């Protein structure tokens, strides 16, 4: 079966600057895919090329096996939601939502019915006669979503739709967008630089850096098995150790003089430098059964977050962040206390040199 959306070998240059390089991605029908990456990595550019606002320098885009590369934006039937909402200020909410259908010349009754349906879907059934300036940011963005969905587009593209909203609205709207997307089963690409957003919403994530897709995978894969050092560092927080390879075939390394036995053989030469990484939640304070690697350390910082206590421990020649759960009967350890940290070889992410 071929994919619903196929982007093959996309290239885009502005002048001599290659902004998107050899970008290939296949998305299934109904999938929710996020483009995640730091500012300036080309996320918006990829989205705008798919929408047709930006001409591509090379490559092709196919939707349902139809080449849309040469189609104008107005011919692609792709819904778009912008960071700045971009509602038409002169039109009411209902007229905004009905705009796409009106342009297509749909009969009046059909437009009205669809508008009512869409306003119910976004939970604003009574606001049809308001103007955009009479709505909050969150409401405006929901209307923008309804407007994009009303003409039944083949795909939905969202470019950082939540960035302009405050934290609480952002989280609730995040869930709402995902729920609506599931209900309609619409194929969606969501651009964000917020890893939490990408991890919590997506079926799959494309982690981008410098115009390149560094890794494509489920949130679970990207978080737990980052393909590159960049992905490991960008997605989630990470503790890194510098290690030296002692026996590559046996998977034995040394960290700050302490020998560690990793889970598998290493693809590196004896004596080579190697980066090892651990998620904060994989590191445990003190010894624990099943966590066979133990390093001595010293408490450097204690931050009480309520249910979670985040500690910083100097161990293995590095600063290690780790999380422990708060327990009413155990106060957090004092700063400067000697301690041990333990973790399992299975949780170690090998980053390469």
């Amino acid at each position, binding site marked *: 079966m071929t994919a619903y959306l196929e982007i093959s070998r996309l290239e885009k240059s502005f002048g001599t600057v290659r902004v998107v390089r050899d970008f290939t991605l296949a998305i299934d029908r109904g999938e929710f895919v996020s483009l995640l990456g730091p500012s300036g990595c080309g996320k918006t550019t990829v989205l705008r090329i798919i929408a047709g606002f930006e001409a591509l320098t090379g490559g092709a885009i196919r939707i349902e096996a139809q080449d849309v590369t040469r189609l104008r934006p*107005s011919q692609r039937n792709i819904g778009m939601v*912008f960071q700045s909402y*971009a509602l038409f200020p002169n039109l009411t909410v209902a007229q905004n939502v009905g705009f796409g259908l009106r342009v*297509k010349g749909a009969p009046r009754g059909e437009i009205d019915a669809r508008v009512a349906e869409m306003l119910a879907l976004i939970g604003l059934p009574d606001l049809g006669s308001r103007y955009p300036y009479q709505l909050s940011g969150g409401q405006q963005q929901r209307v923008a979503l309804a407007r994009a969905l009303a003409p039944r587009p083949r795909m939905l593209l969202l470019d950082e739709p939540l960035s302009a909203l405050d934290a609480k609205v952002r989280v609730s709207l995040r869930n709402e967008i995902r729920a609506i997307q599931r209900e309609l089963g619409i194929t969606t690409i969501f651009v964000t630089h917020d890893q939490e957003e990408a991890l919590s919403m997506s079926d799959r994530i494309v982690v981008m850096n410098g115009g390149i897709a560094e890794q494509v995978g489920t949130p679970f894969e990207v978080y737990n098995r980052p393909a590159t050092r960049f992905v490991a560092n960008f997605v989630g927080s990470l503790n890194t150790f510098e290690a030296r390879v002692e026996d590559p075939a046996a998977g034995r390394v040394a960290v700050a003089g302490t020998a560690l036995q990793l889970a598998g053989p290493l693809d590196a030469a004896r004596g080579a430098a190697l980066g090892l990484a651990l998620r904060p939640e994989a590191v445990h304070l003190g010894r624990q059964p099943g966590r066979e690697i133990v390093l001595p350390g010293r408490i450097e910082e204690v931050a009480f977050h309520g249910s979670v206590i985040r500690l910083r421990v100097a161990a293995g020649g590095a600063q290690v962040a780790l999380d422990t759960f708060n327990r009413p009967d155990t106060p957090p350890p004092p700063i400067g206390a000697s301690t041990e940290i333990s973790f399992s070889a299975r949780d170690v992410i090998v980053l390469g040199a």
Partner: protein
Amino acid sequence: MMRILAWAAFLLGSLIFVAPLLGMTEFSLSMRRGVYSLDAYRSVLADPQFQETFLYSVVMALFTIVFGVMLVVPTAYWVRLRMPGLRPVVEFLTLLPLVIPAIVLVFGYIRLYNTSSFLPLTGSATGTNILLMFGYATLSLPYMYRAVDTGLRTIDVGTLTEAAQSLGAGWVTILARVILPNILVAVLSGAFLTFAIVMGEFTMAALLNRPAFGPYLQIVGANKAYEPAALAVIAFGITWACMGLIQLVTRLSPHMRASR
């Protein structure tokens, strides 16, 4: 101290500006010896030539406005959207009519479009009217362009265009349903300025020999005593009504003010 100076400047300014107006108004009311009356106005309004030329100029103004809007709005929009680098150039071009005297312009027109040219517009009344409309549009171009461009600055032209495009709209739809309605206040203020300019224009209409309001004002002014004053007050009233209307539409369109 600054305050007193400011007030003094204001007073002086109003004196220079208001005194002649008051004098003229007073004079226009004094046709009947000894009492104030509207006789001069009555005489003016009853003059069939007044009605004819006034109507002619109003119609010309309306055509000029429609033509100007259709020329300027898409141009300013396109420059903002696709050729932002060209903005200073276009802005300079639209300022040229302020520098080039109308008389130069109209002589240029007559040379280019006379009866023995490739496009003999001056050969017929309609042709000459069209030529005059072009002239008016040129004269009002600096004001129209500036008004429209200012209007475009208040909306996010690029994103609104893309939003409309992604919903399937073509260029005509985008201009007519998205761009124009959102800069309507700016367009209207440009339109009223155009109206005021056309109603008072003399040089072009006179040289092209069209029965417009400006030349009529001149003829009456040369031949009568009280009526010209009344006419001047009327013309002045038209201009101020236009300015008032600009204020009014700005007030009456809430979504345009609060949309940002």
